[in-house]
C-alpha cells in the first residue's frame, strides 16, 4: 500500500489504536488536515487554543490511561502547546504531540511560522523526533508511542515538516507491530535482594507509614496497593497525585501529606521509623524543609525512574521497577515471611495517630453566612455520591478538592500537580468527558484560573461534552492572596482583578447554562440542578468567602511537625477584602 506522509500519519494513529486527537489546523499541517478530512475512523476535536488541545489530551490520558494525542501547526501553534506539554511532563502523563514544521529545505531560514520545536521542547519532553524521511514516519510514530507509554511515561513530540506530508510523494506503508530502541530498556521487576531487605525492614517497623504517589495511578497498581496496605495494617498517606489510588474512605487512610496535607499524615511522617515511598518522588511540596524531613525514619523507595531515587532525599533501600510487579513481589514475600508486623507497636502507633486525627485539622466554620468553599466541595461529594471525575485548575480550590473530596478510585482526580498550570481544568474536563460520555465530570475552578482557558467553553458546545463547572469565585487569586496575607503583611499585590466577567452571561454567550450562587443554602440545590441537566454544560458561579484560607499549611522553610493550623473555628469575618 502506497500512501502519502499525511495519510501515513493518520493511518499510523488509527493502527496504533488512537480514537481521538485534539488539535488546531494551520499552514504547516494542511496536508494532514486534508488527510483527516478524507477518513472517518479517527475523531478530531477542534479546540480554540493549542494549550487547550494539550490539556484536553492530557485529561483524556489521565482518565483512561491511554496516551493523549495532539496535532498542532508550526510556530505559534507549537509554542502554544508547550505549557500543556510541560504540564504532562511534570506529572509523567503519556502523550504524543505532532507538530507541523516548515518544509525541510527552509528549516533554519526563519521561514514564516518557523520555530525550533525540537529545541524548545527538549527540556519538557521525554523525547522528541524531527522526521526527515517519509519512509521513517510510521516507525517514528510507533517509537513515539512506545517511549511515551513505557517506563516512566511522558510526552513525546514528533515534529513533521510540511514536505514530508505532501500528497505528491507516496511510499509503501506498513505500521510496525513492535519496535525496540537499543538505548531504551525500562526496568520492570524489582531487584530480589533489595525487595527482601525492604520486606525485612518493613516487618520490623514500630511506627511505619506508607507514602504513595502518582506512580501507583500511572502503574495501574491500585489493587496491589490496597492489598499490600491491608495485609500490613499500616497507615497510608497519598500525595496530591496519588489521591484515589487508595480509597480515601478506608480507615487506614490518614489523608494527603505535604504542604496542605492533614496534620495526622504529616505528623505520622515526621514521627515514623520506616517509610515506604511507592511511586512518589519526594517533591518539595511534600517534604517541606529537607533538613527536617522524617528525622527518625529509614526509607524504602520504589520507583520506575532511577533518577527519582535519592534525588532530594537520600533513601536507604531503593527498588527500581514498576510499582505493580514490585508490590506483587513484596506481597508474596510478606505472606511467606516468618516475621509478622509487630501488633503491639502498631496498636500504640495507631493510638498516637488517632490522637492527631482528633485535632480535626480540616474543620471549618459551618455557621458563616458566607459560602465556605470547603462546604461547596463537601456538597459536591455528596451530590455526586463520591464517584465522579473531578478536574481542577491550580490554587486554593485545587487544595480544597484534595482535602474535602475523598476519592475512592484512581484516575478520578485530574489536576496539574507538578507544574501547577492554571487553565488546565476546563480543557481537561472536556478530554475526560469525551473518554467517558456516560460519566459525570466536574471541573472545580476559580475566577482567575478559569479565565486562562475559558475559550474552550466553545469546544464543549461543539462536541457536546456536558460538564459541570464549579467556579469558587472569591474575586481573588486566592492562593496568591493567602501567601501575601501570611508572608507579606497582607500587601495584596496584583492578586485581585478589578473586573471579573459576569460568568453566567459568559456561559450563556457560549451556549451553556449559567447559574449564580450567593448563599450557603443555595449550594446544594444548585449542584443538584446542575447535575440533573445531563445534556448541558452548566457553569455554577459560586460566590465564596473572600477571606478563606487553605489550612492546615506547612509554610516555607518548615518541617512536617510545624504545621500552621486554623487558629479557631468561627473566626470568619463578613468583611469583603477589596
Amino acid at each position, binding site marked *: 500500500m502506497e500512501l502519502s506522509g499525511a495519510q501515513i500519519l493518520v493511518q499510523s494513529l488509527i493502527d496504533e489504536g488512537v480514537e481521538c486527537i485534539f488539535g488546531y489546523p494551520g499552514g504547516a499541517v494542511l496536508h494532514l488536515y486534508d488527510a483527516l478530512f478524507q477518513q472517518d475512523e479517527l475523531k478530531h476535536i477542534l479546540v480554540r487554543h493549542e494549550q487547550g488541545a494539550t490539556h484536553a489530551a492530557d485529561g483524556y490520558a489521565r482518565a483512561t490511561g491511554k496516551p493523549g494525542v495532539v496535532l498542532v501547526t508550526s510556530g505559534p501553534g507549537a509554542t502554544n502547546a508547550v505549557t500543556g506539554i510541560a504540564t504532562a511532563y511534570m506529572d509523567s502523563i503519556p502523550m504524543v504531540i505532532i507538530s507541523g514544521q516548515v518544509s525541510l529545505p527552509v528549516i533554519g531560514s526563519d521561514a514564516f511560522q518557523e520555530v525550533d520545536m*525540537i*529545541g524548545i521542547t*527538549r*527540556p519538557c519532553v*521525554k*523525547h522528541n523526533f*524531527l522526521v526527515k524521511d517519509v519512509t521513517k514516519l510510521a516507525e517514528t510514530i510507533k517509537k513515539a508511542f512506545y*517511549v511515551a507509554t513505557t517506563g516512566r511515561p511522558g510526552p513525546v513530540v514528533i515534529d513533521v515538516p510540511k514536505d514530508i506530508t505532501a500528497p505528491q510523494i507516496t511510499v509503501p506503508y506498513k505500521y510496525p507491530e513492535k519496535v525496540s*530502541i*537499543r*538505548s*531504551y530498556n525500562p526496568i520492570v521487576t524489582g531487584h530480589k535482594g533489595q525487595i527482601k531487605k525492604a520486606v525485612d525492614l518493613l516487618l520490623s517497623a514500630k511506627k511505619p507509614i506508607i507514602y504513595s504517589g502518582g506512580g501507583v495511578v500511572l502503574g495501574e497498581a491500585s489493587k496491589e496497593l490496597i492489598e499490600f496496605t491491608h495485609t500490613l495494617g499500616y497507615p497510608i498517606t497519598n500525595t496530591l497525585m496519588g489521591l484515589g489510588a487508595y480509597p480515601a474512605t478506608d480507615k487506614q487512610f490518614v489523608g494527603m501529606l505535604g504542604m496542605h496535607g492533614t496534620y495526622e499524615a504529616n505528623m505520622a511522617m515526621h514521627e515514623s521509623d520506616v517509610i515506604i515511598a511507592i511511586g512518589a518522588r519526594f517533591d518539595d511540596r511534600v517534604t517541606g524543609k529537607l533538613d527536617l524531613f522524617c528525622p527518625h525514619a529509614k526509607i524504602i523507595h520504589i520507583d520506575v*525512574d*532511577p*533518577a527519582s*531515587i*535519592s*534525588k532530594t532525599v*537520600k533513601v536507604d533501600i531503593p527498588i527500581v521497577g514498576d510499582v505493580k510487579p514490585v508490590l506483587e513481589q513484596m506481597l508474596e514475600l510478606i505472606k511467606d515471611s516468618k516475621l509478622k508486623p509487630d501488633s503491639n507497636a502498631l496498636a500504640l502507633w495507631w493510638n498516637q495517630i488517632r490522637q492527631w486525627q482528633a485535632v480535626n485539622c480540616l474543620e471549618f466554620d459551618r455557621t458563616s453566612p458566607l459560602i465556605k468553599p470547603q462546604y461547596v466541595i463537601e456538597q459536591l461529594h455528596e451530590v455526586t455520591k463520591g464517584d465522579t471525575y473531578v478536574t481542577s485548575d491550580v490554587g486554593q480550590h485545587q487544595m480544597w478538592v484534595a482535602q474535602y473530596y475523598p476519592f475512592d478510585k484512581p484516575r478520578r482526580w485530574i489536576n496539574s500537580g507538578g507544574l501547577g498550570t492554571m487553565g488546565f481544568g476546563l480543557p481537561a474536563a472536556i478530554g475526560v468527558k469525551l473518554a467517558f460520555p456516560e460519566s459525570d465530570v466536574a471541573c472545580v475552578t476559580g475566577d482567575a484560573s478559569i479565565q486562562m482557558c475559558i475559550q474552550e467553553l466553545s469546544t464543549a458546545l461543539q462536541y457536546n461534552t456536558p460538564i459541570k463547572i464549579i467556579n469558587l469565585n472569591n474575586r481573588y487569586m486566592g492562593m496568591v492572596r493567602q501567601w501575601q496575607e501570611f508572608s507579606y503583611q497582607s500587601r495584596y499585590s496584583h492578586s485581585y482583578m478589578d473586573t471579573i466577567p459576569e460568568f453566567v452571561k459568559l456561559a450563556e454567550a457560549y451556549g451553556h447554562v449559567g447559574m449564580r450562587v450567593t448563599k450557603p443554602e443555595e449550594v446544594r440545590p444548585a449542584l443538584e440542578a446542575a447535575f440533573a441537566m445531563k445534556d448541558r454544560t452548566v457553569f455554577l458561579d459560586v460566590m465564596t468567602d473572600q477571606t478563606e484560607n487553605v489550612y492546615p499549611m506547612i509554610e516555607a522553610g518548615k518541617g512536617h511537625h510545624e504545621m500552621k493550623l486554623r487558629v479557631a473555628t468561627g473566626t470568619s469575618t463578613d468583611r469583603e477584602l477589596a
Partner: protein
Amino acid sequence: MRHIISILMENESGALSRVAGLFSARGYNIESLTVAPTQDPSLSRMTLVTRGSEEIIEQITKQLNKLIDVVKLIDLAESFHIERELMLLKIKTSHDMRDEIRSMADIFRGKIIDVTPNTYIVEMTGTSEKLDAFIAAIDPDSIIEAVRSGPTGISRGEKGLHL
C-alpha cells in the same frame, strides 16, 4: 571531585544538545566536552569532565542514562583509566628562542608540526596537568594561540564501553 564521564550515544542530530541542555537545565557544570563518531558510525563517543559531590555525580549519571539517545555510560574516575588531552600551541619564536622552544617541546615529548620564520606550532598530548605545565614553562607573551581538546579517556584492561 573531578569525574570523567564517558558516554556512548546514538550518532543522531540533536543528541549533543540533549546532553548539553541537561547540564544547563539542571545546573551541573561541564569543564570540558569532546565528541566524535566511533568505529561504528551509528554511535558517538562523548567524554565529559565535570565536578560535583557524590550525590550530584550520581544524579548526573542517572539523568544522562535517562536520555533516550544515551546507550551506555561509565564514570572513568571510578576505575583505572588512561586520560589524554591534545593541545596545539602556536608560539612566537624570535631567532634566539628557537632552540630553547624546540628542546622544551622535546622534554615534554611534543612535536613541532608547523614552522614559519616567526612561529612554531607545537603538538602535544598528555594529561591536562602536563599540558598546563608546558604552558607554564613558556613565556606567556610568546603564546599566540592555545587550542586544547579537553581530556578524553579510556579504561584500562579488558573491559570496555561498547554495545
